[in-house]
């Protein structure tokens, strides 16, 4: 292969395959540049950056929508972009669609609450869109370098965003804490990446999985030799996990979360709790499944990078191994999962994710009890919800070894959760932001008797909180149910324990969510507070984002179908 053909195929790959599939992200990048540059020209400063940002994100959303609707996804093939750095499959498509839709709603919210004023609107929106691009990269990462890159691209704008309200000490403190914490975990994660790549000779996730399965860890454990290699692998995996846990605000890397949520403005909290969390979960799923599951068919990878060619070659062996084992699997499924080369890796990953998920969930719910600030309380609530969602990831990875269809439904549970969580948390934080504008307070006790002066807001907030508990007939129930289902299907002591922990947590969380509802609806109105008026547009916005919580509670079918379609094609 001479240089010419190399360049040729690189160009081909980039221009023909990768860039067209990367269009939504490109539109966002162009919007950012446009917003920043337009002010240089005369009259450009009169063009509000809100319009540009909204236009750009809507265009990106349209591009992210599958052209033929849902049917397009059932044939969507997994395709590696940019020489295997990113991957385009249904998960990418789903999460990207989700992120773009969220970006549109979020930009409208920011305009309505007035957080991005005329002076620094372009900075704010540039940061938001930049972080969104980073999250898209996270969701489609196929290489540990892009994993790191995505995490950082999403994190750095978030640090700035959490300190975007200038002149507030709490806000600056939150931003600093977030940045320092983020930098620390990023360093650890990078170290983990280097360890893993060093042992396995590649940072390309499918190649790593193939290498891992070729390593034959089972016999290594059985022979008791090469312990150090295993240790390095485990250490690398754990360190990589640190970076992911930070983005997920999983215990014990959650300390930044309540402080940042309290210090940052409510709008930014919505961004962090919805978009950032969704991207982090998609990334966890990518890395977790990518390292523990070898796709049976040979990859249609771009035959350019040496890694990719190697991949095809090395992939051959596990494939034949697996197919050879198939008849045996029918007789005794148990034996199959024991003998599969990747099963120890899977067990390791599942155990860690499940335990962290259980602790995260319980801790978040318990710590939310004593909070007096609504944003801080919801900060702990996002920690708890991250726990539930991680359980779905654990179930998916556990199931991928035994029952692919059930693994699909676990992934679909996660996607459903993420989607419904968008409406719940976006409404909650939008209401908090509008109320802050109306009454200059974010303390729970100041919400007393709000149902008298702002009935729509109070009722919608109550519905959202009850949905966050996970009670039917509100939307929050369905994803929780699906997670419980997949935990049950996964079986085993660990998963059943997680099931019980998740169930009990639902009961625990009841009290603190309901306390807010009680304060708003039952407590008497304080005399000191004047009338609380929000105006027409904010109320309309709140209705638009919170009515889905009611509607999806009764008719979750269509979201479930999208999530199913995305999960079905995501891995085979």
């Amino acid at each position: 292969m001479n240089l010419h053909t190399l360049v040729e195929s690189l160009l081909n790959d980039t221009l023909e395959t990768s860039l067209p599939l990367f269009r939504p992200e490109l539109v966002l990048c162009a919007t950012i540049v446009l917003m920043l540059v337009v002010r240089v020209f005369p009259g450009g400063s009169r063009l509000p950056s809100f319009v540009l940002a909204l236009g750009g994100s809507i265009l990106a959303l349209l591009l992210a929508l599958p052209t033929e609707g849902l049917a397009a996804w059932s044939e969507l093939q997994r395709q590696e972009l940019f020489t295997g750095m990113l991957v385009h499959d249904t998960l990418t498509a789903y999460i990207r669609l989700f992120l773009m839709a969220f970006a549109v709603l979020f930009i409208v919210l920011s305009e309505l609450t007035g957080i991005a004023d005329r002076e620094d609107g372009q900075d704010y929106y540039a940061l938001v869109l930049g972080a969104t691009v980073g999250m898209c990269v996270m969701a489609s990462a196929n290489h540990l370098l892009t994993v790191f890159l995505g995490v950082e691209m999403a994190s750095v704008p978030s640090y700035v965003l959490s300190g975007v309200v200038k002149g507030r000490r709490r806000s600056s403190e939150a931003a600093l804490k977030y940045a320092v914490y983020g930098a620390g975990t990023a360093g650890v994660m990078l170290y983990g990446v280097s360890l893993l790549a060093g042992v396995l000779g590649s940072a390309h996730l499918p190649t790593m999985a193939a290498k891992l399965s070729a390593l034959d860890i089972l016999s290594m454990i059985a022979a008791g030799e090469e312990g150090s290699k295993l240790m390095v692998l485990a250490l690398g995996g754990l360190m990589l996990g640190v970076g992911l846990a930070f983005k997920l605000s999983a215990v014990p890397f959650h300390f930044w979360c309540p402080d940042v949520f309290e210090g940052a403005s409510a709008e930014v909290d919505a961004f962090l709790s919805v978009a950032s969390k969704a991207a982090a979960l998609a990334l966890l799923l990518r890395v977790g499944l990518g390292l523990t599951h070898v796709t049976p068919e040979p990859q249609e990878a771009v035959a350019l990078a040496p890694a990719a060619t190697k991949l095809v070659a090395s992939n051959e062996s596990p494939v034949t191994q697996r197919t050879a084992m198939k008849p045996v699997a029918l007789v005794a499924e148990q034996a199959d999962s024991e003998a599969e080369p990747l099963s120890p890796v899977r067990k390791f990953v599942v155990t860690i994710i499940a335990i962290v998920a259980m602790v995260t969930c319980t801790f978040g719910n318990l710590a939310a009890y004593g909070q007096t600030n609504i944003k801080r309380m919801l900060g702990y609530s996002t920690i708890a919800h991250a726990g539930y969602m991680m359980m779905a990831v654990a179930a998916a990875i556990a199931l991928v070894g035994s029952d692919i269809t059930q693994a699909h439904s676990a992934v679909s549970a996660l996607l459903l959760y993420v989607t419904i969580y968008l409406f719940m948390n976006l409404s909650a934080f939008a209401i908090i932001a509008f109320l802050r504008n109306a009454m200059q307070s974010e303390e729970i006790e100041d919400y007393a008797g709000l149902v008298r002066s702002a009935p729509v807001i109070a009722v919608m907030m109550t519905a959202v909180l009850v949905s966050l508990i996970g009670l039917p007939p509100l939307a929050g129930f369905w994803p929780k149910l699906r997670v419980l289902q997949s935990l049950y299907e996964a079986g085993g002591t660990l998963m059943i324990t997680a099931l019980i922990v998740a169930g009990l947590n639902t009961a625990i969380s009841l009290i603190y969510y309901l306390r807010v509802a009680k304060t708003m609806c039952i407590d008497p109105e304080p005399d000191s507070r004047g009338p609380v008026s929000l105006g027409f547009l904010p109320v309309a916005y709140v209705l638009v984002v919170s009515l889905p919580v009611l509607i999806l509670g009764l008719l979750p079918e269509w979201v479930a179908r999208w999530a199913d379609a995305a999960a079905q094609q995501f891995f085979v």
Partner: protein
Amino acid sequence: MNLSEPAVYLSLLVFLPALVGIVLAVSPVRLTDEAYKLVTLAGTIVTFMLSLWLFSSGNEVHFELGVAEMQNLFNVDWIPSFGIQYLMGIDGISFPLVILTTFLCVVAMGASWPINKHVKAYCVLFLLLETGIIGVFLALDFFLFYVFWEVMLLPMYFLIGIWGGPRREYAAIKFFLYTLLGSVGMLIAILMLYFNSDLTRLDAQQLADAGIIAIAEGETADQALESWKSGESALAQKFVEYSSEADPTQRKPLHTFNILALQQMGQHTDLFDSEVLWGKSLQWWAFLLLFVGFVIKVPSVPLHTWLPDAHVEAPTPISMILAGILLKLGGYGIIRICYPICPQAAYDLAYFVCTIGVVSMVWGAFAALAQTDFKRMVAYSSVSHMGYVVLGFGVWSAVGDTGYNADYWKMGVNGAMYQMIGHGISSAGMFFMVGVVYDRVHHRNLNEFGGLFAKMPIYSGFAVGIFFAGLGLPGLCGFIGEVLVVLSVWKYSILLAVISAAVVVLTAGYILWAIQRVYLGAEYKGPHEEALTPITMREIFIAAPLMFLAVLFGIYPKLVLDYMQPSVDMQIDQLAAWTQEHDERETAAKPKVIRDGQLAVLPRD
């Protein structure tokens, strides 16, 4: 869309109250408080009419007297991705309870006139609550059942929390937390049953019994199955696909939430018999989780402590709904779900269930004796009376010693069902009677009453009548249920029968003592004596129907039994047949153990 289809009719019956509530909530027209109450009352009355119309055989959708099977069964896909159906139907077990619900809602709304705080919100929540309750009784998909079950929680929480007494917030959250803990367990049990269910294991007749295939005139079940399999429905296609797999180890199970199908599986297959934890079978755990969830609602000792608090704090009409209907949901769950789906576990735990019932009866009666708060006393009397219901369900007397004679068990279950109806009338009446006097003098201290007969003669007449009905005086509605249950227990366990019969003495004790302290005596001893005005017409309109029904059901029990007995008897016959089969399998297995020295493997059916 016309009312001659069960799907439309029953849906309307369930959702009409909620529709009225939503219209009230979102309509921009502001009405007076009085008008809101009138609209709500009209909504409940129309719902009541709809349910009464089921009696009329001229109506296309009606309840056929003497038919034991599910009637007006219909099935629409709700969330096909999760396998959840909108499946409803009505039989002799649910029908009387539905009528009781719609009736008591009218009465309770009538009793809501003294409510003057946030009337609109009250009306909306009240109507949502009614939808939830009727939905639970009609739902036959386990999930639909669960959703309706939870729908009731939030309205109830706010109804107690906003319009209740001084400690209302504590009582409301306690009620919510208890029920939610129970329903989390229930959810886990639902998942356990769902993931172990398999429709392909049922034969044609069982599928027909489960309402999955409909048998046309002059067709056998197998023919119906064939025509269903070649049909369009997605479930049928899945059924064909899954059951066509020849290799049994490869065959995928076809899961279902259909309660009727789960009942068939519980009684005719070994799907729920696998061992899961500590040597207990799956259905044992499922039964326990479900039973705990339902018993919290009943409520039975030791999970009853939310009830006195909730009752004392709740406003009068909500107490009436709570005691009159909500407690019955627990009993309904036990008879509809626990027993038919998990017969093996119910058989093993029968004595445990009976003991829970008897302990509740005794405990509730003693606790009622000790109360000085009028409403709290009535609340504990509910715990005691609902103990009869649990006991009646539990008397599994169809065992080998009795030659699998299910007559006494039938008597017990019929008695328990009757007790639910009777208690629905009498407890709602008792709470209303307490409410009438509380509205006047604003206290409930039993020691500060007296002499009400002289001041409010008509009211006192009604009150004493209703309290006698609660006591179980012959000729009133409480008697029939109690006597049927106590008689049936005699064949099951003499010890429990003696104790439960003795509870009648305690019941007489606390009721008579309360009557003596409140209504008899020379003079009224408490504050606000001047407020003791005679009963109003509105109150008479509420008390009179309750009193009338209490007498009617007391002297002519056939009126209710005719409707529910066929369904109850059929279910008990099925369970008795199951017991016999089960014992025969056990005895068939036993000699083998002796002969071969190893456990025999039961042949799969």
